């Protein structure tokens, strides 16, 4: 195991809906005290709760290092707006944004929009893949150095470093470029729950982090290997796709926190996972035990780092900043 490799630890901070900012700020700060890589906030259009991306934008200036990953759905939203909003979360958090891609399968959600009826998950995940693709293109539609502020020629931007994406998918098309300059991380981190088949097909192509819900390290290892193989088959470097086990937790005592540390440490040391994504039953209580009980033990075992080595979520995850797909095209031509 390389010296820089570190167990990735993250947690969901949703739960029963809250509408006050203080609730989410205190949870994110707690997770940050435990040097977790990131927190997620799940979301759908159909059950009570605030808009997750808005909540984590509100949390951003109130935190310093923790990665912020809201669920952003692709079924009833506009890909152009989605790309701008996630890029903006990256700007306001100074490079700590991600998005958990999801689809809306239900008829109830379709009726909230009245534009299309519910569709099978396979179709929606196919569309989600297209959305992830165009969102990446929009993030790259400004090269990093597109803004030149050149007084001598009067030009604010170099238009040759802005690109039309001209994307045509099955259900939408986007002309581009984005209205938002390329975000600090280049691409905010893409997280996909890769447990179900259709979603896994999206994860192996587009995710930086794949989550798998599984009960045993054996199943986790099998899923991880499959995901890495398929990513490789798509021409990706599997080491740039972390697979985290999504673990429901319910901690009532310090002993529970110790047990959790044992389990997580073992799975990780056996190479079954790159880390875990904790799904607390009671987020305030469970996260408290994790930060004060589980985290120190994992640090003591040398599996978890004691501080944030960098400032951005990509740095926490050991992921490099992606090369701009258009800049690369420009160089080779």
């Amino acid at each position, binding site marked *: 195991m390389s010296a820089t490799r570190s167990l990735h630890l993250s947690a969901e901070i949703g739960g029963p809906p809250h509408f006050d900012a203080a609730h989410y700020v205190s949870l994110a700060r707690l997770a940050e005290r435990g040097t977790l890589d990131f927190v997620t906030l799940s979301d759908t259009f159909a059950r009570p709760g605030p808009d997750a991306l808005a909540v984590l934008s509100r949390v951003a*200036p109130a935190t310093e290092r923790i990665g912020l990953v809201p669920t952003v759905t692709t079924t009833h939203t*506009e890909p152009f707006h989605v790309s701008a909003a996630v890029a903006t979360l990256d700007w306001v958090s100074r490079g700590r944004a991600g998005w958990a891609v999801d689809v809306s399968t239900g008829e109830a959600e379709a009726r909230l929009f009245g534009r299309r009826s519910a569709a099978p998950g396979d179709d929606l995940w196919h569309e989600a893949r297209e959305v992830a693709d165009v969102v990446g293109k929009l993030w790259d539609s400004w090269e990093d150095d597109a803004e030149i502020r050149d007084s001598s020629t009067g030009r604010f931007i170099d238009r040759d470093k802005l690109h039309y994406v001209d994307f045509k998918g099955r259900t939408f098309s986007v002309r581009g470029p984005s209205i938002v300059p390329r975000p600090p991380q280049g691409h905010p981190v893409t997280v996909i729950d890769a447990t179900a088949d259709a979603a896994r097909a999206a994860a192996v192509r587009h995710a930086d982090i794949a989550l798998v819900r599984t009960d045993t390290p054996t199943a986790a290892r099998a899923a991880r290997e499959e995901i890495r193989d398929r990513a490789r088959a798509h021409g990706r470097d599997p080491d740039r796709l972390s697979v985290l086990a999504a673990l429901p937790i319910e901690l009532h005592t310090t002993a529970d926190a110790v047990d959790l540390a044992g389990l997580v440490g073992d799975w990780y040391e056996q190479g079954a996972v790159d880390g875990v994504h904790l799904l607390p039953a009671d987020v305030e209580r469970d996260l408290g035990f994790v930060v004060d009980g589980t985290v120190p033990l994992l640090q003591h075992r040398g599996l978890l780092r004691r501080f944030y080595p960098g400032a951005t979520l990509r740095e926490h995850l050991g992921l490099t900043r992606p090369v701009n797909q258009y800049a690369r095209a420009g160089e080779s031509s």
Partner: protein
Amino acid sequence: MTKQIHLAAHFPGVNSTTVWTDPRSRSQIDFSSFEQLARTAERGKFDFFFLAEGLRLREHKGLIHDLDVVGRPESLTVLNALAAVTDRLGLAATVNATFNEPYELARRLATLDHLSAGRAAWNVVTSSDAFTGENFRRGGYLDRADRYKRAAEFVETARELWDSWTPEGTSRPFSHHGPHFDIEGEFTVPRSPQGHPVVIQAGDSDEGREFAAASADVIFTRHGTLEAGRTFYADVKARLAAYGRDPDDLKIMPGVTFVLGETAADAQERAAEIRKQQVSPQNALLALEQIWGRDLSAYDPDGPLPDIDPDPDSGLVQGRVRIADPFAVAAKWRALSEEKGLSIRQTVIETSTRQSFVGTPQSVADELDTFVQTEAADGFILVPHLTPGGLDDFVDQVVPLLQERGAFRTEYAGTTLRSHLGLPEPVWKG
């Protein structure tokens, strides 16, 4: 009693008036810029902070326009972040009613209202064309009449959604069946701290004014002179009665610029300098091309105007308002340049918009107050020409003078934007 002035701060995003060549001009995208301007506005006890929106980069001669400040964040996301670093300041986002869906946007606005404890506002714009539409699923184009119909039904639907929770906090199913929206279900966000986010309208046509009179809390206008302001004010306020509304229920706020100096002459000199910086040689040619409809890149901006005629059918200019009679404008410009001996650039400077309020802090304070006391406006949306520091002098020098004369608050009376604007909480229509 002296009528109270309302003040808002515009963060100039994509625009041609920020003097970006000035060394004090900083990033238009880093969060620190937004934070600085918002904190200054809150220090000045402003009513709200305002962001415009554009959903496609502008083009000129089929190429992305490269002379102006460009690149902006998505508004609601930035405003949620600003809610973390401000306490009282209202937070207003311009969001298009053509390229969004009521359920999603109503939810995002209600969320901002909760997370900011009652400080959210929505500036409803309708601008729509096939050019912008190319970025969206909807794709196409709504003609002018339909745009306002969709916008009106959009606002109505958003309000139905916001009212679908009782003030006591019980969610009730909603359904809306209209020409543009056919939706039903349950809204996920309880009634927000202000009842509803504040609704602002920007748009000047008869339809626009009627739309504002029927349903907006604030109207954002371009009528920045005393004369035009009074006419607009009288017209819009007179429309309210037909909707059972009181003149005070709709605040009229023009977007205005300002330049301060130690003396009147000093301020005039600065204003002239700023105008020269805003109209670069390249920008002068571009302004000319927009009227002539021709490629004039071979002309010298410091030389005379072209003696060829405009070509109104060239299709050179896209995504901008068409000039109705380019021949007339060209003739007027030629006459002006001959009479005063002006170059292309000087002519453009002479004909482009002047700074609205130029003078000493005292004279600017007097003038602003006169506008409000004589019903040319209820307040102003200030557009600084430098980001993010362009409001500092105004807050330090003009605001205290307005406060001294009792025309502007010295402390926020309440916590919500509605309370700053003196607007009642909307009656719940369950």
